[in-house]
Every structure is written in C-alpha cells, then in structure tokens.
C-alpha cells in the first residue's frame, strides 16, 4: 500500500467529489419509448371516448366537442409515433456507429498487417 494521503490521491478525491452526475441510464431511450407507448394508449382512449360520445348524442354542438376530442387524439397519436420512431432510430444509429467504428478499426489492422507482410 502506498501513502494514502498522497497529494495526487487528494486531488483525485477532490475531482471525483466535484463531478456533476446526470444519473446515467443503461438504456437512455427506454423512458422515451415508454412515454410514446403511454401517449398512444391515451390517444386510443381519447378516440374511443370521442366515438362513443358522438354516437350517443344527436346534439350537433356536443358532437363538435367530441370531434375536437377526436382530432386531439389523432394529434397525440401522431406525437407518440414520432417519439417512438425517434427513440428507435437513435438506438439503431448508435449501434450502427459502433459497428462502423469497429469495422474501421478492423480494416486499419488488416491494412497495417498487409503493409508489414509486403515489407
């Protein structure tokens, strides 16, 4: 064991104590996907309420209210789909980028080997 109060360790401890933590997540898209699914469920509920409400009345003014509710449901559904696609694409492109980096490294290694063999 070394001297436990070495200046470097003290400095290290101070820097670690000063770290700003974001509460990192193993799967950062998980929350967005869950939110998108929840929003979609809300949209479906809105549509069902709007449909049953509008068929249950002959008053045109009330039917207008349900029509607005139905349009709101469509907007919420579109937002949910957009969120879902966004999260899925983010995850897909992250893996794609990792794959590209990996292949690029492998390719560089092959080139270096080929140069060595040529020498």
């Amino acid at each position, binding site marked *: 064991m070394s001297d436990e109060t070495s200046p470097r360790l*003290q400095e*290290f401890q101070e820097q670690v104590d000063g*770290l700003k933590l974001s509460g990192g*997540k193993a*799967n950062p898209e998980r929350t967005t996907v869950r939110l998108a699914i929840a929003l979609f469920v809300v949209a479906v509920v809105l549509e069902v309420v709007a449909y049953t409400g509008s068929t249950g009345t002959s008053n045109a003014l009330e039917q207008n209210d349900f029509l607005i509710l139905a349009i709101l449901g469509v907007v919420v559904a579109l937002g949910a789909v957009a969120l879902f696609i966004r999260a899925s694409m983010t995850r897909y492109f992250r893996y794609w980028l990792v794959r590209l980096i990996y292949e690029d490294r492998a390719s560089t290694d092959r080139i270096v080997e080929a140069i060595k063999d040529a020498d």
Partner: protein
Amino acid sequence: MTAPLLELRGVRAGYGIIDVLHGVDLVLEPGQVVALLGPNGAGKSTTLGVASGQIQPSAGQLLIGGREVNGAKPDALARAGVCLVPEGRGIFPNLTVSENIRMMTFSGRSYIEVQDKAYALFPRLGERRRQLAGTLSGGEQQMLAMARAMSTDPALLMLDELSMGLAPIIVEELYGQVAELASGGLSILIVEQFAQTVLGVADTAAIMLHGRITRTGPPNEIAEELTAAYLGIDVGGHDK
C-alpha cells in the same frame, strides 16, 4: 482517502437488453494492484467499461473514492484520473508515436510534459517518435498505450488484456513496468485471461465467471484454483 479507490457493489450491466454482469462486487484499495481473471466472455472487459464510465450499470453502484458516480461521463472520469488502456491497445494506428502522445494533452497537461513522461517511461518510444503507431511491433504498441495512459498522471489505471497477442518475453517486460508503477503507489486494476505473469504483480486476485466474481483472494491461492475454475471443476467447495 480511507474509502476504497474503486468499488463495484452488485453491479449489473450489459449491452442493450442483454445483461453481461449479474451482480459484480469488487474493491480496489488505494495503492493496490488487483488482477481480475477469467475466461473469454466472463465479463471482465465489461467490468472495466463500467468502472471507466463507458457502460452504465443497469443496477448496483459504482463508487470511486467512496462517492457513488453512477452516470458520470467517461471523459469526466478520465480527466479526474481514471485511465483505461483498452484491449487491442486503443492507439491511433495511422498517427505517429508523437502524435499519439500529443492526443493526451486533453488532460490539460502540456505537450512537453506528456512527451517527457512517456519517453522517460519507455525510451524505445522516443527512438521511434516519427514512426506510424500501426507499424510498431505489438509490444511497442502496448508500450505506447501505457505511455499515453501514464502521461496523464492517473490515480487509477486499468489495463485490459495487456498480454494479448504478445510474446512471453515482451509480456514479462511490460509487467515489470507495471510492477514499477505499482511500487510508486499507483492503484491498478488488471484484467487478464492468462494469469501467470500478472499474479506475480498483483496484491489480490479475483476470478470472474459468467458475469460474477466467484472468488477473491491472495494471488498464490487463486493461481491454484484458476485452471479448475476455467474448466468448471469444483475445487475445495468454492462457489463456481
């Protein structure tokens, strides 16, 4: 600093939905050298990924200097002094030796400073400073990776498969250097698949199998059990 320099408590982590670590507990005290051993696919490199902040644990705690740092960004940890030499060396093969070393000025140290430290540690690199890193021998590439790591004056050094693809004599030379660094008080976590050389340097060794640390103890005891552990044979009633 009284708390362990690095501690993993019940860490679970993996890639996407696949968990690789299933509750890892590991402690590295200041100035200690710990060897983490295990067969291919045991989760050793993933453990280093978690310890360096590159992989976020899905459960459990990562503590550095006694502080929970789950969610800390890897660059912030690197600046603080957590340094990982990855498997495959992690150098830039199409840059020269000196350009590779220049990359370490990210830590805020001057080029002269990092250069002096790197070449003092491995004088052979100084002779090859204009050579493309990819054309160095395997041992020299590993020296470059270590020199880059050491030039930032890390408080915690993590070495992933230092011996991979190298001749035994080169491995011995590199571990001689590691022993020298350890005697200077640096805390080191070494991951290795083939253990004989590293056990001579380590204060403590741990065997990792299937994403769990199954045994921790003095290197001489671990050496006896290692072969059995790799082959999945139960030795002395230890949990495998």
